[in-house]
């Protein structure tokens, strides 16, 4: 689907999918696309679909609508276009190109037999060999033009290679400068990039062929820089051409001559910076060369323009990539904070409610106890209310514990700490823990331990969490059905060396489209009750063990989750350092995990 992705501005990281045929853009909340930018008009622009394209039209906005840096009234958008409204910069992604959709029917990859019959590998070549394309000129072809052309091609080829191998702009600019110094007889050079906010040029890298002298500052005329940026043209300058200082009698011979090349870094849409190099010819050299001091030629200028363009494209790509990563990161952080805040708020609301009931119960109890003849009925009711309040507080305390445990499990890269453990005992513990919750929801919990089940090496705490989350989900899935039932069983397949835990429910089931996202972080089908952490955490734990979770589901009929754990017998595993130091843990211990954890 076509979209506008905000790459700069207050809404950075937001993607607006262009679902409707007409979509308005503006600061006001009534717009299909609302931009939180004070320089955007209330009703700024409108997008109208025209076949497989969108037309962008300015709505007489105060600050105008810009497409790829130029103001527009109405223009058709193409994929990759940049739209600027106020301070907000958006990247347009067009309709998917279906031209190549069915190419699989037109291209055959055939088996080895047919391949052998028709063709064979005659010569292979590595990347390094390929880069020698512009190597030594063969003998007999020493035409100066040809040599120069080959050299230039080689420079461009190496530039392209160099800029494609880094995503760090400073490193990229450093490489460009190094290569320029390799090919051009420059003494000093610098690259300046345009600040996206202020539009001012700021030096990013400087190179000197010789160690720079103190106070050896590169002085560049602002007039020249402005000319290069505004006219998008490279310039070759010399302080020797505009006067008659070549007369040896003149004092210029005491100062020498400085030549410079300054070229724009022209990207796809705009000039992103400039590259400047210069060279000096000393009075002695001038005398020696009898005034012939043209170290920089028109060919150098052409080459520099080509290099600068290549560098600009790489700078743009790197900047977009960084902006995209940053935007995605901001969006992810925002979503995480919003989701977690929502759950924590609900938990706090529960704690507040439980505390309130306890307070009411205590008030009633105190009042009844102070009567001349204590009202025992009221006191019993008050005690019941206190109990009810405490249960709610305790349940929410367990919820916050589960949330924190899931967050910790998901956030850190960890290796499981396998110890020899009894898988059936572990599942039995979880079932026992969940029995109360299942009973509250009227769901029948059945557990059948598969025998024989050998002692296996796994991280009992991790597996406990993984199984708990899956069983919790199964119970919750049965909340809306009559005679809800969750059947849990285990089995061991010695020939496959796999232990399985099956959790099957007759609950609401999962739509096929939703099956793809059940392991996606923060995606929950349980509305406000779900954190969207449970199943991703279970899957992470199983993967850490080298296992997996398989799911089958039919809407309206129920779901079947199979947790597959590679069966590692104790004698096949090298016990971790910690396990060697500490006594073996029993999986039967009670853990501070929650029966109320909700996916």
């Amino acid at each position, binding site marked *: 689907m076509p979209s506008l992705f905000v790459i700069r501005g207050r809404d950075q990281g937001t993607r607006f999918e262009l679902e409707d045929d007409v979509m308005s853009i503006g600061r006001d*909340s009534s717009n299909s696309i609302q931009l939180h930018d004070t320089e955007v008009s209330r009703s700024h622009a409108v997008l109208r679909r025209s076949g497989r394209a969108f037309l962008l039209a300015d709505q007489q906005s105060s600050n105008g609508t810009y497409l790829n840096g130029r103001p527009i009234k109405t223009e058709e958008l193409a994929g990759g276009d940049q739209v600027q409204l106020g301070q907000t910069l958006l990247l347009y992604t067009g309709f998917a190109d279906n031209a190549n959709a069915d190419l699989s029917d037109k291209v055959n990859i055939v088996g080895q037999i047919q391949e052998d019959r028709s063709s064979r590998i005659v010569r292979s070549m590595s990347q390094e060999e390929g880069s020698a394309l512009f190597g030594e000129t063969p003998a007999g072809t020493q035409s100066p033009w040809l040599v120069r052309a080959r050299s230039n091609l080689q420079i461009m080829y190496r530039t392209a290679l160099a800029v494609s191998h880094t995503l760090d702009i400073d490193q990229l600019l450093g490489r460009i400068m190094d290569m320029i110094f390799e090919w051009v007889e420059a003494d000093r050079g610098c690259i300046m990039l345009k600040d996206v906010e202020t539009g001012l040029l700021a030096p990013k890298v400087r190179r000197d062929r010789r160690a720079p002298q103190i106070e050896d500052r590169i002085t560049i005329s602002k007039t020249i820089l402005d000319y290069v940026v505004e006219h998008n043209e490279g310039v070759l300058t010399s302080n020797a051409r505009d006067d008659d200082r070549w007369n040896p009698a003149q004092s210029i011979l005491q100062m020498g001559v400085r030549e410079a090349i300054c070229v724009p870094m022209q990207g796809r849409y705009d000039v992103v910076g400039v590259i400047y190099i210069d060279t000096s010819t000393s009075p002695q050299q001038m005398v020696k060369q009898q005034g012939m001091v043209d170290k920089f030629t028109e060919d150098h200028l052409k080459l520099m323009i080509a290099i600068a363009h290549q560098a600009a494209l790489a700078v743009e790509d790197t900047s977009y990539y960084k902006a995209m990563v940053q935007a995605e990161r901001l969006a992810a952080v925002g979503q995480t904070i919003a989701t977690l805040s929502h759950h924590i*708020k*609900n938990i*706090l*609301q*529960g704690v*507040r*409610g*439980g505390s*309130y*009931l306890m307070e*009411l119960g205590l008030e*009633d109890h105190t009042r009844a106890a102070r009567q001349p003849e204590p009202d025992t009925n009221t006191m019993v009711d008050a005690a019941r*209310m206190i109990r*009810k*309040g405490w249960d*709610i507080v305790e*349940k*929410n305390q367990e919820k916050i514990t589960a949330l924190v445990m899931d967050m910790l499990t998901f956030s850190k890269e960890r290796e499981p700490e396998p110890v020899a453990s009894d898988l059936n005992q572990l599942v039995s513990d979880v079932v026992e823990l969940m029995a109360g919750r299942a009973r509250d929801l009227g769901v029948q919990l059945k557990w059948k331990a598969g025998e024989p089940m050998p002692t296996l090496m796994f991280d009992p705490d991790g597996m406990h969490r993984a199984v708990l989350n899956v069983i919790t989900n199964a119970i919750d899935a049965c909340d809306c059905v009559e005679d809800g039932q969750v059947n849990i069983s285990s089995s061991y397949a010695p020939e496959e060396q796999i232990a399985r835990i099956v959790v099957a429910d007759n609950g609401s089931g999962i739509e096929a489209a939703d099956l793809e996202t059940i392991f996606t972080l923060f995606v929950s089908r349980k*509305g*406000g*009750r779900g954190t969207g952490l449970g199943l991703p955490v279970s899957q992470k734990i199983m993967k850490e063990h080298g296992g997996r979770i398989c799911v089958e589901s039919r809407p309206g009929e129920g779901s079947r989750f199979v947790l597959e754990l590679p069966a590692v017998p104790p004698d096949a595993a090298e016990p971790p350092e910690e396990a060697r130091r500490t006594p073996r843990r029993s999986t039967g211990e009670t853990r501070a995990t929650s029966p109320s954890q909700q996916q």
Partner: protein
Amino acid sequence: MATPGRVLIVDSSDDSRAVLREALSRNGTEIFEASRSDTGLALARSCRPDVIVVDVDENSQPHPQVSRDFDQATHDGSASVLLLATARRNVEPLAAGEVVAKPYHYAPLIRKIEELLARAA
């Protein structure tokens, strides 16, 4: 002060429903509960509550629409509808007193419900 009457609570949170039920039924108020808005609407039609308390955060409908749905469900709009909602920007404001911002404290909420019950009596 006893404020008998009929209150319908529509809230997906078991805890919130339990707290309101316990606190309101102390004074003899009859409580009806629903965890989803569709079953809540059905109960509103059948049990004729005096006050309907609806948590709208899980409801995809905009706030005024939820209020109108429950008003219509009580035939003559005789029930007072109290919405529990997280304050959001760009939400069409409702008449004063119809929305209690989340997260809320229970004591003022109970007082508000009892006021509405007293008004209905």
